[in-house]
């Protein structure tokens, strides 16, 4: 599927709210002409100012309504800090919507969402949209983080049926990693097994594939990779995908961001 209509936009910041000590929810006025987008698509933001980093920074669309475009930005370096520091009325230069493969609509089925850290962003978009549109059955969101301060809470607005979190240090929710939480809930028969949607650190997604993937009818994951062009041109963001004729290189930006998790040649994909 090739989604078209991408372009360069300048978006005015409406609201910038810290939802954890290091993460901001940035709501912008949807720019004129900004195309319809699907969960799993992203925008790429130009960092400006004296000698800012060269490359744009990719951010999943966290929500898109008729009026607003929302991003969830975790501060991890200079680019994210600049974006998280924007104030209402400032303009953000963005390229998008990018990505051609998105989270497929559950069309009424139940779904489990596993989100690690800022991987929550595209998951939130999926839950909000499908809940608004009534195309999802029961939805369970499992959100993992290192500690309480890293948890992003349920920022889904018209959220999931059920929300649970896990912290490695046990400071809130399940004590341990979110994959183990998922496993335990599966063992206990407490969560549905139709669809699994995930986004988060590679280690988390890989663990999902190894430990729980087979127990779901399908597992879709939105991947991240360092990107330059965002449009499939530079071949910089590739991920090895297993095919019958061996691993082939797919571009996360244009062949994704969403892949069937078990197709990824995880062992050949180094961070």
């Amino acid at each position, binding site marked *: 599927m090739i989604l078209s209509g991408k*372009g360069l936009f300048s978006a005015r910041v409406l609201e910038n709210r810290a939802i954890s000590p290091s993460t901001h929810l940035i709501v912008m006025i949807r720019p004129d002409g900004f195309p319809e987008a699907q969960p799993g698509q992203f925008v790429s933001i130009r960092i400006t100012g004296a000698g800012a980093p060269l*490359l744009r920074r990719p951010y999943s669309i966290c929500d898109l309504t008729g009026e607003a475009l929302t991003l969830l930005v975790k501060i991890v370096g200079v680019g994210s800090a600049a974006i998280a520091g924007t104030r209402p009325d400032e303009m953000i230069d963005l390229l998008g919507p990018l990505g051609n493969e998105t989270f497929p609509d559950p069309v009424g089925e139940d779904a489990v969402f596993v989100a690690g850290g800022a991987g929550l962003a595209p998951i939130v978009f999926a839950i909000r949209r499908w809940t608004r549109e009534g195309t999802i059955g029961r939805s369970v969101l499992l959100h993992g983080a290192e500690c309480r301060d890293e948890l992003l809470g349920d920022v889904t607005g018209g959220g999931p049926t059920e929300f649970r979190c896990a912290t490695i240090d046990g400071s809130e929710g399940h004590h341990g990693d979110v994959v183990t939480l998922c496993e335990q809930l599966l063992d206990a028969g407490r969560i549905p097994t139709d669809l699994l949607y995930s986004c988060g650190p590679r280690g988390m997604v890989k663990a999902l594939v190894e430990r729980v993937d087979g127990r779901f009818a399908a597992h879709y994951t939105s991947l991240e990779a*360092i990107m330059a062009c965002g*449009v499939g041109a530079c071949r910089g963001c590739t991920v090895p995908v297993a095919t019958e004729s061996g691993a082939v290189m797919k571009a996360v930006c244009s062949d994704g961001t969403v892949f069937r998790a078990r197709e990824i040649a995880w062992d050949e994909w180094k961070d």
Partner: protein
Amino acid sequence: MTRELELRIGNVIFQNPVFLASGPAGYGAEYAELIDLGRLGGVVTKTVTFEPRPGNPGRRLWETPSGLLNSVGLENVGSKRFFAEKIPPLIDNGVKPVVSLGAEDWDQYRRMIEITASVEAVDAVELNLSCPNVERGGMTIGTDPDLLYEYVRHARDVLAGTAIFAKLTPNVADIASIALAAEEAGADGITAINTVVGMDIDTVDGEPIFDRVRAGLSGPAIMPVALEAVWRIARTVDIPVMGVGGISSVGDARKFFMAGASAVQVGTAIFYDPALPGHIVDALERDGVPEPCPGMREAEE
């Protein structure tokens, strides 16, 4: 004091001297929604090799101060699919392709030239004699004037009437003498520069960023290096020079013309500023092409 916009190489005409560099823009089509490709002098397509190449495993991109390291490794669909699938949409949309031809080894290279000769729609090529990411061929050819002469000579012999640019690596002691060898072998123009060899290390895991360790540095960090290479080459050869390397503003493009370039290519900058190539065309249309610095043609000090 300005020059015409049109660039002529034999019978081949480019409407203006602003190109997309080989690689960053892929096959062109990927950027068609973001850059008005038809307004440019041409699009140098990403280097194609006779057989498809999967490219390098592991990380492929890494930012450095004002620079970008890449280790894409010439991933490409191979010559067959390239000419069948990638060239027609460009031509149909009024985009002028300059086909970048890779050289893995002599045999592959000959076959690549041969198939290119058979494609009538293509009348301009750039010989990538300089990619630092390929093990065989690539950089070795670009650093050895005799070998380079053979490669260019062969292309010249087979591709009559085609505009041939030889793209050089800066990773040599004297790029001007390499350019001279290309000119003597019959190249119609020189493209300079390809990426500068570099590497980076992840201090957390104590390992090189890239599986193949070395990568190619591009972006504003290398602009002064590219500018000096163009200056030196333009003083040495009589054929046109395409300047490329770190151009990230209209002012940078102007510098390359002043250094003696007849055309410029924009690479890495399109990642953050896809509007730049168009802005350079605007500026040249408004102000003309800058003249070379007065001292450019003077005898070497």
